[in-house]
């Protein structure tokens, strides 16, 4: 459920959330709120991450063995669940990234062609 007062943001494409999570975790382990923040900030607040959708995604990635999780203490002294990339996750990230780049490039070319 998006809220009205948020300025218009891009909704995430199906399946891209997983990729973004993996990408975020490449800099080290992070908890869910941190991941959400990072995605939003790195995208210059362009991307909307519904925080509620994040957790089932984390759950999914964990089940696939791409990330692992353990409870720890956050920078502001809160108990939080920290996620980190596994070896399989790192590999998956590589695959997904190149796939995504090819896709983006292809779509870009098509849009350019029509626009020209």
């Amino acid at each position: 459920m998006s809220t009205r007062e948020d300025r218009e943001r891009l909704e995430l494409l199906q399946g891209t959330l997983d990729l973004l999570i993996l990408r975020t975790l490449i800099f080290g382990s992070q908890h869910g709120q941190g991941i959400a923040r990072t995605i939003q900030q790195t995208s210059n607040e362009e991307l909307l991450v519904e925080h509620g959708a994040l957790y089932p995604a984390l759950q999914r990635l964990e089940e696939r063995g791409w990330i692992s999780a353990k409870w720890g203490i956050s920078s502001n002294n809160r108990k939080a669940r920290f996620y980190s990339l596994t070896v399989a996750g790192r590999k998956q990230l590589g695959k997904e990234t190149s796939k995504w780049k090819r896709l983006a490039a292809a779509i870009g070319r098509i849009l350019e062609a029509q626009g020209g």
Partner: protein
Amino acid sequence: MFWRKRNTSDFRDEIESHLQMETERLREQGLTEDDARAAARRAFGNVTQAQERFYESRRWLWCDHLWQDLRFALRMLSNSPGFTATVVLTLAFGIGASTAIFSAVYTVLLKALPYPQANRLVMVYENVQLPTYQNRRNTPSPGNFSDWSVQNTVFENMAAYTSRSFNVAGNGEPMRLEGELVSAGFFSTLRVNANLGRVFSPEEDRPGNSRVLVIGDALWRGTFASDPHVLGKKIFLDDQTYVIVGVMPPGFHFPDPDDQLWAPLALSPDERINHGSHYLNVFARLKPGATIAQAQTQMNLLARRLTELYPDSNTGVAVAVVPLLEDIAGPVRPALLVLLGAVGLVLLIICANVASLFLARASARYREIAVRVALGAGRGRMMRQLLTESLLLALLGCVLGVLLAHWSLGALKILAATNLPRAEELSLSSPVLLFSLAISLAAGVIFGISPASGANRGNVQDALTSGSRESGVASRLRTRSLLVVLETALGFVVVIGAGLLVRSFLHIEQVRLGFQPEGLLTFRVIPRGEKYSQISERTLFYEQAIEKLRALSGVKAAAAVTFIPLTLAKGRKGFTIEGRPPSGPGQLPMAGYEVVTPEYFQTMRIPLLEGRDFSWSDSPETQPAVIINESMVKRYWPAENPLGKRFHQAGPDDKFPWMTIVGVVADVREFSPTVEAEPVIYFPTAQFTYTNGILRDWVVRTNGDPERIASSVPSAIWSVDKNLPVTRIRTMEEVRSMSLAGQRMNLLLFGLFAGLALVLATIGIYGVLAYSVSLRMREIGIRLALGARRTNVLRLVITQGMRLAAVGILLGLFGSLAFTRLMAGMIYGVSSTDPLTFLAVAALVVVVAVAACYIPARRAMRVDPVEALRYE
């Protein structure tokens, strides 16, 4: 690793920590505590849904859901006990009836016979196709049996048997044991061995060697008190000493469930080449790999060779190889399948009815469902919930239905004992229970899916905003109307079936049997044994016993006969008429025959049309005399006076004495009320010397109720010979009634189904009209306010009901035409498209529909326009 799952509280903690961190961050940006908290929640989205989604991802979730759904369903159902009871009860009736009928179908048509590899067992018959006689399943002659069993290469074993009862005299009352005379291969063909001792050796299947006996388990446990030393014991049957050599395992019987003992058939060398008399039952076991078709082909080749060898006896005689199961089940198969069809239709009607009830309730629950969807319940989940409810109801119906089936099987066993083979095996075996479960689940899905899919289609917004008016009303009324049309159509078909059976039964009741069963008592006494080996000794016994019977008070006349009518037993003979050109092979005139004492016709009240009755003075010393029936006169002396004409038994070359026709009697329905009379020759007992002419059945004409003298019959017989058992004491009415047991069972079951179908259709029509009237209150009020007469309103409602009924009847008409065609073999004297039945049933359904319309119509008539317009 799937079972090391995070639990829900861990997940909740994580979300909580997220919300706190987000709140803190927002506070740092300058929001108040409350605003920050709210914003964090907003950004998070639907917390519950996130938790839900997490929860749903767990593997064992469906189990939890099932439990939840079940609890919820139970709560819903116990909240509306009336609805639940109605649905469960109607379902139970349908499922119970279907289960009982399927149990019969399974036991009789599908279940393997209780012998090892029973599907390799076949009956082998003579297939006789002659101008004078046709029978696809004629019992083979001993000569044919002997030749077949030696010459064939498709059977691993072939055996013969013929039923035989034995008189047992001992301490106390004499009794008769039913048994079989069997050839040596009998038990090895069945692949059943004795439980105790042994079965017969081939050496014992020869004359002079054959006084050995294998007894059944029941006889061993009963008469012999499970004596472990029973082997070697001597037992006197028909004055002969037999030695018991074996006891069969419990539950073994073949061919007849009543059989208690088996003795060697021991065909004499003469008998082994007798191709003329046909009295054996022959069965065989196919060699591994051999097919029925192969066996059939080879046996027909063999039969052709035998025809060349014995043209007199074997012309027109081919072979029919019939799987044993088919042989046993064949006669009742069509009726059973039609009954299964009928009960299936009833079950469908019930499903339609329950679906209609569900729809009615769905109207009420529509908002509840919409609210739950709005609160975030997944649609699949809602669907599951509704299906859980309907399946739960179906399963409850199944349990109760199986219970009903259990009880009705008891009734069915009694009802079907005489006409349904293997009736004693009827039970709720696991395949039957599986069937019952399967149809219950199918029914649950059928009547559960319609309201569930309605809920799924429904628009949440509409349902929530439409206030008190229910939505989807029109479509639901349409669906319910459709269901009612379907119910009426199916009901019509079942009632037509019942109607045809009623008409047919009335027809049978009116068939003139040719004798008068009222006031007639019958019983069985068979004089066998040493002292009755000569015909003169037997004749003397008949004469004396009849004298004693006549002396009983209330007895008008008494006589004995080989077999009374309506018991399906009759011998046949070929004969040669004096002065006619000799018949070629296979052209020999044939007729059934009975041997009788004097006064048989008088006792039975069979009219003597011409000539005289037999008397005790018709003896071996006097001129051979016969009496023939009308059919025989019509066939062989159509334009002549038959009295004084002569014929002799068998073919022209056989040297038999000429017999003179001394009388003509009216035709009697010998086999069953539905089988036309055939030519019959009656022989006087004293002149018929063969042992197969022993008189078995006795008839006594009484002044009043024949039951009254039943108790004095045995002592009358025993005053002549105290060693002869007296059995099967019944009134002739009972015999007649028993010969119609099959028809009666069909009629009763069909009547039951038809009644059920009619009631259900009535309820269906009533329900839809009541619903529609309640929806049209306002419209009716306006009509009345604008000056419509109340009779107009009445007509309005009735017309609506009639339209549904009319469409149903029309559809049912087409359905019936297809269905009743399958009933052709079950009905007698009435066509399967009998216009009278169709008209009467249509009228009945119309009357029932009008009755169903009446109450809603009256309610509509009484609508107060003011009230109706104020409504809402």
